[in-house]
């Protein structure tokens, strides 16, 4: 299978959890989809996240590479997300994040989006109360794992890797399924 195979990214992907760095962009319960745009993919957002328009002009490019078995990270299929399983998803995010950091040659989509930072005045010092929202160029990588979730669903992982050109001191992970 290749990231450029017709249809591999088709479908509506439901976001089920997101780290704080990214939860204002990928709100749980929202859905996203990927539409072919030339040689890349454009993200369509069908949700309520206040800052989802950061995708407007981003085109993610397909990166070919290895396709890891989900069994490496989790025994059996992952249950659908619920409060009862949130710790399991958190532990999985730990493993997938380390994997993504350790293995740069894995099949994925990747690109740069503009994430707004500190949209609300209570999030900044008084001296900057009339500040403009700061748009931070943020690299993301998108991975999928076939047949990883209950009912044969594919698992989606969006990862914001460490990037020395980024102004903030964090990373973040989003998980969802189709």
């Amino acid at each position: 299978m290749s990231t450029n195979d017709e249809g591999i990214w088709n479908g509506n992907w439901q976001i089920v959890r997101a780290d704080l760095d990214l939860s204002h962009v990928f709100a749980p319960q929202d859905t996203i989809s990927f539409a072919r745009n030339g040689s890349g993919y454009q993200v369509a957002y069908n949700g309520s996240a206040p800052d989802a328009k950061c995708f407007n002009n981003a085109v993610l490019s397909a990166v070919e590479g290895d396709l890891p078995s989900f069994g490496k990270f989790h025994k059996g299929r992952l249950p659908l997300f619920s409060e009862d399983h949130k710790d399991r998803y958190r532990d999985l995010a730990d493993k997938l994040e380390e994997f993504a950091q350790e293995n740069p040659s894995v099949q994925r989509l990747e690109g740069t989006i503009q994430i707004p930072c500190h949209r609300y005045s209570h999030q900044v010092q008084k001296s900057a109360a009339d500040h403009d929202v700061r748009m931070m160029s943020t690299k993301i990588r998108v991975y999928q794992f076939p047949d990883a979730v209950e009912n044969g669903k594919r698992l989606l992982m969006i990862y914001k890797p460490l990037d020395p050109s980024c102004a903030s001191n964090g990373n973040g992970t989003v998980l969802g399924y189709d």
Partner: protein
Amino acid sequence: MRHAILFSGMSFKRHVNGLEFCYRTLVDQLGFAADAIHVLNYDGSLRCFGGTEEEAVGVWPGDGTDYRMVVGAEGNRRSFQQALRTVGARLQPDDQLFINITGHGGHRGDEDGPDLLTYPFCRRYRRDEFRADLALLPAHRSLVVLMAQCFSGGFIPAVLAASPARQTYIATATTEKLQSFVSFHDGNWDSFQRNWVAGIAGHTVHEAFQYATRPDIVNPYDSPQFAARPTCATEATLMD
């Protein structure tokens, strides 16, 4: 006696620079013994994530001279635990321990709170693990903690709960739910860590915090916090 642990996990160059600034301030301005300072960074060297070999042996941007701190171990939980054990074995009831954490932090968004992102591969050092490790220290006079990573304010309750010190002071670059930032004027540093360290020589820990949060100095996107237990811990200094 005074002891210090300087820690950064998945460091960028600016974090290594910040550790060096802290090291020089402790030794040159505050009279710490160099062998009482444990430096833990990235892979156990002056290297950093995304950095070149040339940068690892380059000069410190503060004054263009060679780095002086000696990195003794990797920036991860195992090394931090070892440093705590080493310090703990020497720590006397009237001693002080200063801990400076910088680098990266993460937050899964749940009640487990923030994590440190450590070497290698951003391995998570969870807040509860940090609290448990810190709690193993013997009783001592003063614990001062400076944290500059994203979501660092989420460590405040853990540090206060775990500290066996008679006086504990913690200053952080952010609240539990916000990120910390590079200095926008000079990308060689993280803003809050640099400013707090710049303000500590000759002053109390809380005067350093007040300096670092001055409107003309603070990065407007940081959200600095502090806590002291008891309240008089704000009057602590890092001086002998």
